[in-house]
């Protein structure tokens, strides 16, 4: 048993850190101060820098344009990105759709779709949830019928509605679950399609969330024509792709690196803000105890995450640890937002003036928009398979109940 890093790993960490310090644009930091909503260009600026270095597809093997890092290296990379408070990279392509194409795609699909992901040239969104299919994802109704197009080629004609589609307004491409056999039972009869978001018949409408940025959307599809070669895996095998992908999503959702960064921010805030009795909040025994509880849970989460990595890198199936990471990862992140809201007090509760790109804070910047972020964090236990679904998975798979 060993918790130390090797000299090589420590050197790797220094390399990452130095790169970020040198290359992360100050202009980006300035633009995102005061809780402003990032633009598409903000995201792409940093993604292009990483892509140029070959680090955007950090989890990918070399043969597909990734750096070919070990799991520990990937963890170090994530830690350093978050620790430096860099803007998140849009990950639907790299983390979710890419692995599906690598696993189930044809040689043509790999050649066509993977390089633009690696090079920050295509932005992907996920079209899974529907108004009637949330936790019960297999009950999707978006319909894809085979038709012959005006050009004489075979197409899927897609009609339906997707919802809660993150950042769809920025996306070039989407990966969709659609029903290709309406008579088959639930999980059967679903296919996995790659759809050009510029196709005629696609409409993206924002879902307004309280205090949230424009993050989620409804996507309406009306007679959208999708070439047959954009289907990944066999027809009616979409559920296999989705299950594979959800496993990947879940491990990302534990999100240890990011929560570590947020706890650091919380600590800074608690060092600055005074409670009603005039004590700095990190000196108030009750608040300090709450932070300690959070930190201890996070230490355990990181250790569990590490066990899952160890299993995966030794070729063992981490199994129900994935559902645990999703459940506990989301809960611990939510606690962090909750405590940050508490530490920020009224200073975190000021709303942005309409149409502004941010707010004029009434207190220091650390707590800006803490209340909005808290509210937004409630989604963490809902999406990607709600925590109730995860607990059922754990009971069924790990305990055979």
């Amino acid at each position, binding site marked *: 048993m060993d918790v130390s890093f090797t000299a090589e790993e420590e050197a790797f960490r220094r390399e990452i850190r130095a790169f970020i310090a040198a290359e992360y644009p100050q202009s980006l930091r300035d633009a995102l101060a005061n809780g402003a909503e990032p633009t598409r260009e903000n995201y792409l600026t940093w993604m292009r820098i990483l892509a140029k270095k070959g680090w955007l597809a950090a989890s990918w093997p070399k043969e597909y344009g990734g750096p070919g890092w070990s799991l520990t290296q990937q963890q170090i990379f994530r830690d350093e990105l978050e620790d430096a408070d860099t803007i998140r990279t849009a990950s639907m392509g790299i983390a979710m759709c890419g692995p599906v194409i690598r696993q189930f795609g044809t040689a043509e699909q790999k050649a066509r779709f993977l390089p633009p992901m690696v090079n920050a040239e295509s932005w992907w969104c996920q079209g899974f949830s529907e108004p009637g299919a949330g936790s*019960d994802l297999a009950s999707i109704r978006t319909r894809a019928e085979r038709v012959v197009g005006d050009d004489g080629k075979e197409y899927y004609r897609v009609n339906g509605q997707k919802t809660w589609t993150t950042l769809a307004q920025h996306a070039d491409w989407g990966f969709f679950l659609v029903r290709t056999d309406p008579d088959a039972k639930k999980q059967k009869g679903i296919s996995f399609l790659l759809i050009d978001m510029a196709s005629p018949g696609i409409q993206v409408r924002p879902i307004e969330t309280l205090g949230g940025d424009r993050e989620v959307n409804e996507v309406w599809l009306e007679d959208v024509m999708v070439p047959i070669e954009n289907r990944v895996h066999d027809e009616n095998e979409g559920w296999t792709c989705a299950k594979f992908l959800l496993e990947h999503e879940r491990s990302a959702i534990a999100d240890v690196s990011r929560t570590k960064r947020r706890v650091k921010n919380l600590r800074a805030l608690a060092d600055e803000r005074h409670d009603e009795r005039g004590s700095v909040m990190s000196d108030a025994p009750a608040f300090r105890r709450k932070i300690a509880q959070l930190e201890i849970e996070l230490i355990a989460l990181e250790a569990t995450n590490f066990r899952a990595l160890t299993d995966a890198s030794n070729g063992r199936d981490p199994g129900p640890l994935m559902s645990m990471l999703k459940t506990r990862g989301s809960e611990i992140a939510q606690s962090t937002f*909750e405590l940050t809201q508490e530490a920020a007090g009224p200073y975190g509760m000021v709303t942005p003036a309409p149409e502004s790109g941010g707010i004029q804070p009434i207190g220091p910047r650390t707590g800006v928009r803490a209340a*909005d972020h808290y*509210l937004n964090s409630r989604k963490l236990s809902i999406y990607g398979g709600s925590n109730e679904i995860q607990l059922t998975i754990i009971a069924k798979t790990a305990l055979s109940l």
Partner: protein
Amino acid sequence: MNFNLSDEQQMLRDMLESFLRDRFPFEARRAQVRSTATESAIWSAFANELQILGTSLPENVGGLGGGPTENMIVMEELGKALSIEPWLSTIIMAGALLRDAGAKAQETMAAVVDGTAIVVPAFDYFPGSFGKDDAGVSIAANDGGFRLSGKIPVVRDAARATHFVVLAKDAGGGQALVIVAADAPGLELKTYQLVDGVGCADLSLNGVEVEESAIVARGEEAADRMAEAFNAGVVGLCAEALGIQRMLLQWTVEYAKQRQQFGRPIGEFQVLQHRMARMLIKVEETVSMTYLATAHLENRTSERAKIASAAKVMIDQAGLFVGQQAVQIHGGMGMSKELPIADYLSRLNVIAQQLGSTDFHFGRYEASSFEKKAALPVTA
């Protein structure tokens, strides 16, 4: 010992409930929050149509002589409608600060009752700050009158105030409660809105001049009035939170009965059934504590401050659970603006910090329970 409402009190509840249901649907609330108008058709109707602004105020200002129970009833209904009317500031807290406090106070509160004045206590509704150096107001004699200078952060309802009641300190540390007109020269407001839609302001008083008659209380009496206003305000918040929790529970149960997943309403899943049962338990505990704290105010018992803090603690905790689970059971819909769920949750989050955080009230309860001190600190 009883928790019963009188017939008049029951009538007040029914009247206000049906008025707000008819005249203040959620779209009206959204519109009011978006607008920057300082006039409110609802408050005017309270004054003129329903004539309820004096319900809990003494007869010497034109009120009906009610008290904490009437305030509880109103606050619960305002909570259910998620109203942003300044009942807590103007009727409950300013009412307590100015009750029987001389001619100027009575004249001001009489104007509140007829709807022409909105009086707001100018004190930090969210005690605690980043460095306390520049907070606080000083008062000094000046040319037959007095002069006020200083700053007060995060004053709720400030944008709508016609008058403020300011707590100021003289050079010797003596306290005074002073009425200041909102349009007084030297008074500046930096306004902003919080996530619950209420307009707040940081106040700066730069040599604001007031006459002797504007001083409504001094010394210990001023502190006592602050404590009364604080306790009454805390209990009013509890009643508001109760109204909010009730609606969240009701909507969640309705949604769970109708929303289908896996071929049946999600309300048939045992885990969600038990969770909603837990929500109901929290709501009923909120009822119990709100009633109890109100009755202690009503009876002016020696335990009223302790019970008010106990109520705030429990109700904040209940609100956290009820609000979070309402969102969770609504799934994505709970975060969308199509439903009012997130708005109600946001208000609960603000309440948890308003007039003292949960931890502050824990500490205040502990001071009373463990240290057997006669007087409790109000804020710091």
